[in-house]
């Protein structure tokens, strides 16, 4: 078989169907729309069944911890009567140390059930270790493909640690230098091995995250007798937001605001050899968060089950320096030493809690494990070695790739809003462009409205902008 880049990429749909065991064409409804809920139901598990599958490998049921000292700190800075309770879901308590294990649990279960001999995941994130740990428990082979090095052979310390962890669980770790052609290597491996594609973006993977939102909703309602008022969710590829929001709804939390949070890395090119090691955060940042929101179907499956604009009520960014600062606060004031990337939404919690009333409840829905490489001191040392300036000051002065500013006090930690309606417009534009549909019919307009959580008038307005007014 021809293994050239072009030949392999042209076989991608066939390879994908074989490797996920799901024929996505059954969900398509014309050139633009597809049956999203139908696709999600194809995972075929109730939330109770998902919880059961996860319990088989000790995933989930993680503690929800109230951060009392952080609350006091926020209330000191906030206007009288303001400063919500701040709770954190300690997802580091999962076997491989992150919420990603919920996603991996379902994918690996599905692979075993369908008779695959092994699983492959393309990820530089915690998902690799999660899949490796689940594969270890279910006795399957595992390969993790990572983007690790720049052309100097210099590896991101955080990703090196994640690779080590995968190896500790018995997985093969295939490490690549910078570039989106990782996908090509991934396809070649799927073809060579016949393993299951443990994609982050299948309906199974998202169903696995739903238990996180469900647990958060249930735990808060049982303990405090009310729905959480806001849940802050680190946003990258969209699965964390989508799964958590769907789980919250299933727990009956219909008034909870879903807030996405990404680290601001604007200006850095994700596929640039030079920029690669000039960032301290390898996921949970705007370099994934924005493009995956405005076009989810760029993922490694034909239709992405993670569709964040369907669920987001608000989307904010924080700076790298702010995340390192709150990571320190969490250790020093709450006795919880956790990895920085998992504290992205905690950084936004400080200023958002200060806007909320004292009797309201804000939940930060994850933490992650920490260790060599995956630690503020490791990452700031690496940043300095790569020519980044690190200093105290106002984080508003940060420049991604040049300057990391560690706040001088908690009052300087401020989440910055991203205009969600601009992202919604951009999504609709992309959908029209890629499908070639210029005059969507009523069914397609309804689909687009659901995709961006807006009304039909909003969608029609954007269509008019794109087509220059409706043709009569």
């Amino acid at each position, binding site marked *: 078989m021809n293994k050239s880049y072009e030949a392999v990429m042209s076989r991608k749909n066939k390879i994908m169907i074989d490797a996920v065991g799901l024929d996505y064409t059954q969900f398509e409804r014309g050139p633009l729309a597809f049956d999203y809920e139908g696709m999600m139901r194809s995972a075929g598990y109730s939330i109770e069944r998902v919880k059961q599958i996860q319990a088989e490998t000790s995933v989930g049921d993680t503690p929800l911890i109230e951060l009392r000292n952080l609350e006091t700190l926020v209330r000191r800075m906030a206007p009288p009567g303001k400063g919500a309770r701040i709770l954190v879901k300690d997802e580091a308590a999962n076997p491989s140390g992150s919420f990603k294990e919920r996603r991996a649990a379902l994918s690996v279960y599905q692979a075993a059930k369908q008779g695959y001999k092994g699983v492959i995941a393309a990820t530089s994130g915690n998902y690799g270790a999660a899949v490796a740990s689940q594969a270890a428990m279910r006795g399957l*082979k595992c390969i993790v493909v990572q983007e690790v090095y720049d052309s100097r052979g210099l590896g991101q310390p955080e990703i090196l640690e994640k690779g*080590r962890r995968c190896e500790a669980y018995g997985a093969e770790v*295939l490490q690549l230098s910078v570039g*989106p052609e990782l996908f090509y290597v991934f396809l070649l491996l799927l073809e060579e091995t016949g393993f299951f594609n443990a994609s982050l973006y299948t309906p199974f993977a998202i169903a696995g995250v739903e238990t996180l939102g469900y647990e958060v909703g249930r735990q808060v309602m049982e303990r405090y007798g009310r729905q959480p008022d806001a849940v802050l969710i680190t946003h990258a590829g969209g699965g964390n937001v989508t799964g958590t929001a769907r789980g919250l709804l299933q727990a009956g939390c219909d008034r909870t605001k879903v807030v996405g949070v990404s680290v601001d890395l604007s200006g850095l090119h994700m596929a640039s050899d030079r920029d690669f090691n000039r960032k301290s955060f390898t996921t949970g940042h705007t370099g994934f968060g924005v493009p995956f929101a405005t076009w989810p179907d760029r993922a490694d499956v034909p239709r992405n089950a993670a569709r964040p604009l369907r669920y987001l009520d608000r989307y904010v960014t924080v700076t790298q320096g702010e995340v390192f600062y709150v990571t*320190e606060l969490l250790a020093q004031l709450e006795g919880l030493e956790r990895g920085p990337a998992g504290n992205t939404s905690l950084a936004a919690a400080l200023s958002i809690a200060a806007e909320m009333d004292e009797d309201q409840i804000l939940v930060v829905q994850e933490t992650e494990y920490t260790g060599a490489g995956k630690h503020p001191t490791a990452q700031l040392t690496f940043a300095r070695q790569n020519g980044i300036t*690190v200093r105290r000051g106002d984080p508003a002065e940060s420049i991604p790739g040049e300057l990391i500013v560690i706040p001088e*006090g908690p009052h300087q930690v401020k989440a910055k809003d991203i205009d969600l309606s601009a992202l919604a417009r951009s999504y609709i534009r992309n959908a029209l462009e890629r499908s070639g549909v210029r005059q969507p019919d009523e069914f397609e307009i309804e689909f687009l409205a659901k995709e961006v959580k807006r009304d039909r008038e909003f969608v029609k307005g954007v269509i008019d902008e794109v087509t220059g007014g409706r043709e009569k």
Partner: protein
Amino acid sequence: MPEKGAWVEVYNIVLPAGSRAPQVPRDTQDVPLEMRVRGFLLAEAELGKECTIRTLSGRQVKGILVNDSPRHVHDFGEPVRELLEIGPEVRRMLWPSLWGGSDE
């Protein structure tokens, strides 16, 4: 020379410079897509020469032998003063009578 069965790392160029995907930015176009993977050496081999390994998933992979007994070298880095200052600062804010002392 690493013996048969040694734990080693091999290296390959997957796509040479100039043959990268079209959407890749210029600086990445100018460098190759490189791959590294670890496994057990199937026959004694010399560093810098081609060899074959068996990986942890059981695949056989051919590549240039670049590392014998590769170490995990990532660590916790240097102490970072900018972070060390934070704990005492916020404790002074919360519990000034206990933590309010100053060196000056």
